[in-house]
């Protein structure tokens, strides 16, 4: 069994660099969907992200909406 002092010396050093990892993250209240406050924050953020990401989803949809012109193109490169 290591002494308390030695154990402390072997413990990993907590990094506290500004701008790295989660250091500038702000923990806000409880993180649980059963908490109405968190749930409200989540739903609000979700609507924001859906608005941001919808154009990409729509672009993926439109790329699958094909017309006769798409199917008629001829592929015949030679070499």
């Amino acid at each position: 069994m290591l002494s308390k002092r030695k154990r402390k010396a072997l413990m990993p050093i907590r990094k506290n660099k500004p701008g790295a990892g989660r250091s500038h993250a702000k923990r806000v209240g409880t993180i649980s969907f059963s908490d109405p406050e968190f749930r409200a924050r989540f739903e609000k953020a979700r609507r924001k992200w859906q608005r941001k990401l919808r154009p990409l989803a729509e672009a993926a949809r439109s790329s699958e909406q094909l017309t006769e012109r798409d199917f008629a193109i001829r592929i015949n490169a030679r070499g």
Partner: protein
Amino acid sequence: MSLEDILKLPDPYFILPEDARRQLNYIDRYVRHPELGCRTVVLEEHYIDRDYIEDHSVFYSKSLTNYPNYCTRVHFFSLEPTQLQSEITRIRSLRSSAEEHVFWEECGRLSKRHYIGFAVIKPLPGCPVGRTVLRCLQEDSKKGHLRKFKCACDFDAHLLGLRFTVKGLPFQQQDLGVSACATTALWISLQRAAQLEHAGAATPAHITMRASQFALPFGRPMPSEGLSLDQMCQAIQSLGYSPNLHRAEGSSFEVTRALLFSSVSSGFSPVLVMENVDGSVRHAVAVAGVAVSQHTTAPPVTGVRHRSADLRGLYVHDDRCGPYLKATIAERKGNFLVRYELFDAQEEWTLTHILTPLHAKIRLSFGELYRAGADALTSDVQAFLNASGENESTLWRSRIYRSHVYVDELLQRVGASRLVEQLCRKVRLSRYIGVIRFDAPSLDTFDVLLDTTSTERNLNCLAVLQLQSTNVHTAELCRFIAGRYGGQYIH
């Protein structure tokens, strides 16, 4: 001594020999690459090749010229001839003196270390390169990117009593008799699709005949005048697969890149339909692999990043040149550009369509999988991070896997045995599953599994898997997603 000299091929009459042997010379250069280091070539004469004999049956046998129905197969090894001879003799003697498995293990070991692959040489002076399977280059390019050949698979060749195995994607040259670029690209793509299902692969003759079964918009099917996209889809459908077609022209660069990346990283070889700069020629190539950044450095798109942002290039099989040709990608005015060096000149093509033959049970397309990921799930994950006060980006990727391949991939993770046990006990998996994986610095990696036999309107979530069970917030999010979309939470 070059491959051309070894084979002593007759010169074609009306075209330049260097034009006819461009692919052969490319293969010669490729096998001499320092990473492969070919030292010995073994010729297997009078080799009956399934693809060529079909071409011969439907086309060449009806010519006035008496074309033989057999080919020569060339095997490439990275051992000196005497060393190779003694290794083959040693392993062959093991069959009678040792246990059976020892013999097969030794065959596998010799293949892994020294077998580079094979090329079938057809008795056609104008287009000699037939079915060719060559080993891919190493994953680490040492140039800041990784080569990922997810479409490569194992092919066996039997020579001198031994079984040699090579991992690659088949290639062949267009002959303009039975096949032009569209047929050849489709043939390559279908070779991979057949391997995924352990099914018999279609030959170029099969593809051209199936493609021209109901429509001949450009005249006679043979000699090949090229195919339309409609005909390519018809051929795929009649060979038992489903054509999954996306238009890249006029679409978003990010979305096209994501769909292409998802398809290749799922192990499906998509056919790229491309247009030259002035729009006068369309060409088709098959994708064998991707080049991705060694480190994820691409800037985030709206705070959420698809893994395809790390895509740096593609490895394509171009039937006018050779296999595993490195192409770079770029964006210009929303167009997806594919550039590569061919015949000492830079070629630039605009990608217009991506055609992927999928198993008929995969009803969920890569586009629909992407939409489910972007529209619903990524919004959930990013909103969760924001509501938790974390200013982080979510990295996500979307793939379609055979369910047992996914389970096998899970088992390769340390400590995943219990997770797999839970998954197999609790969830009924479809033959192919849609997998959306999320990574964020403050969360454990987790996967959302979707049933690919379901459709976009009735999308069925199978499970949400938390790959490490250390983070309580990830558990909260996974439980929420599982509850919201109707899947099992596995941890």
